[in-house]
């Protein structure tokens, strides 16, 4: 007899209170174990023995509990995941607070480092299991029901998906592509959520500009209070504030890059909000300002370099027109064009497009290339001179 999906399975068991036999759906809150997961807190930035000890105790609890969870049979795993709020909060706290690669380097105790690694793996495996509706031939959930479960219980949401990409995407890209691809396929509402999130992403850019005392397009039309007129710029703001802004910018760029790298299908949603154009104009305004502020402060921390990113699509043919439109819209952003061209030569892209499509509008591409060329005019730095890390 073929196995039933978990969402249709019924279990017969003895009621612990009355001792009588009863039938329950396999996915039922009473099946959840009373485990009480604790919240994750990142490793301490300093080697304070008390802080190290607290981290170790907390992390050990989580690591043990996640190992227990991963060893549960399919039905019990899903009951725990759906009905245990402490588990959901624990996983969320890890995604929020786990150290990113570009976070300030901490002098890490070897035991802390080992436990953090162990935790990192267990969290990934937990999310991997949560994103899989078919674990084996006999253990599976109806795809549409799976889509509802993960969405209605907020097992995955857009911020969590972005965190997963930045934390795990580099080394586990292929697995993560499958995980996130499956989540979006089984629950298309995530596309609407992404669409709803994009204005907040753009607002983050606006907020950075605002904090640096820069004008921005699409900024709030609210009248400015008189007391706000004191001009704070990246050059004169307190050092800690500048550091926060730069780290915020690094985190924003790296997170978006990681997400689009893992899930290129999301590019379409980004483009609906004229993302490339907004990014280019943000870059043009913010980066030179932050760069000169950093230089002015003799800010020697190498970890605060900024990342530039691109949106790429595997199937290039349908996007040629979009590519041309995006470039046409950012041609006035000269600084952005130069830096972009240095990292991703536009000439190469155009050459690729010419090979991909014989119907490419040569007048437009020539216009774009000419604009890129003119963006370099009058600049001492020349194309291809960027100092790149040989690694």
């Amino acid at each position, binding site marked *: 007899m073929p196995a039933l999906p978990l969402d249709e399975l019924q279990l017969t068991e003895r009621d612990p209170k009355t001792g009588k036999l009863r039938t329950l759906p396999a996915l039922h809150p009473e099946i959840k174990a009373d485990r009480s997961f604790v919240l994750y807190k990142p490793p301490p930035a300093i080697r304070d023995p008390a802080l190290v000890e607290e981290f170790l105790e907390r992390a050990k609890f989580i690591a043990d509990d996640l190992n227990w969870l991963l060893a549960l049979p399919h039905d019990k795993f899903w009951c725990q995941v759906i009905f245990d709020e402490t588990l959901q909060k624990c996983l969320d706290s890890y995604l*929020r607070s786990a150290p990113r690669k570009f976070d300030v380097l901490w002098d890490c105790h070897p035991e802390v480092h080992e436990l953090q690694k162990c935790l990192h793996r267990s969290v990934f495996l937990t999310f991997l299991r949560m994103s899989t509706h078919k674990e084996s031939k006999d253990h599976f959930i109806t795809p549409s029901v799976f889509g509802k479960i993960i969405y209605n219980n907020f097992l995955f949401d857009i911020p969590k998906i972005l965190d997963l990409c930045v934390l795990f995407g580099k080394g*586990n890209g292929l697995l993560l592509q499958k995980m996130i691809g499956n989540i979006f396929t089984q629950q298309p509402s995530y596309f609407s959520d992404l669409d709803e999130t994009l204005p907040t992403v753009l607002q983050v850019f606006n907020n950075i500009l605002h904090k640096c005392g820069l004008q921005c397009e699409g900024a709030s039309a609210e009248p400015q209070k008189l007391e706000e007129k004191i001009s704070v710029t990246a050059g004169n703001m307190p050092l800690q504030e500048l550091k926060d802004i730069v780290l915020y910018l690094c985190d924003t760029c790296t997170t978006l*890059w990681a997400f689009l790298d893992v899930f290129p299908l999301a590019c379409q949603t980004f483009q609906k909000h004229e993302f490339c154009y907004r990014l280019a104009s943000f870059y043009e305004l913010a980066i030179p300002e932050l760069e000169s502020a950093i230089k002015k402060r003799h800010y020697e921390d190498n970890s605060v370099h900024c990342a530039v990113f691109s949106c790429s699509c595997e199937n290039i043919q349908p996007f040629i027109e979009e590519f041309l439109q995006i470039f046409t819209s950012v041609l006035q952003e000269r600084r952005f064009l130069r830096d972009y061209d240095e990292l991703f030569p536009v000439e190469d892209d155009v050459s690729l497009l010419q090979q991909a499509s014989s119907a490419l509008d040569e007048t437009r591409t020539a216009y774009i290339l000419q604009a890129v060329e003119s963006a370099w005019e009058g600049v001492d*730095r020349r194309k291809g001179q960027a100092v790149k890390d040989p690694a």
Partner: protein
Amino acid sequence: MALPRLTGALRSFSNVTKHEDYSEELADLTTKRSKLHAQLLKSDLTWKKIIKFVDDNLDKKEYQTVNGDLKTILQAAKQIVGAENGQEAIESGAVFLFKTFHGKECVGHDETKVIKQMFGPFPSSSATAACNATSRIASHFPEEQLRALMQLAEEQNGGNRVLFGKNIVFSFDMHDLDHSEELPVNGETDMQKNISLDY
């Protein structure tokens, strides 16, 4: 202080996420410890079963020697768990100590950590006494017999279940920024370098 994160902003300002209240979780470590104590009381391996095991497998003369060691473990558990927690908690603590020190020659770093995680700070002399007593008790039994006894405790913890993803190759490589000696956006740097104030 919260780190500046894009996803932090999305959690705070968008409507696509569950707005969690984390304030009640401040005492989560205390809750966790009491939950572990409760789990310990439900263990399939009980103090009575250990006594019965000793009684069933040893002759009278040997039993009397071992009985003294059992009492030592119970006494150590009383000091570590706290007499005020009642006989049941003390006995489950004694089982925990027996399980922890089984196969160990001394109280090492790992054992100290495990006991501290379960009961908080404890007198090290009690742990040493329990460890030595466990070692002496274990010397009276073949390894297989003891392993069978210990399995009673492991089954409840899922010790012999297969971990999901056990064979998955996991990479710790994470997205990072491109480091370079110079920012790529340094159009004006050369110009600035050429300016000389040396008249």
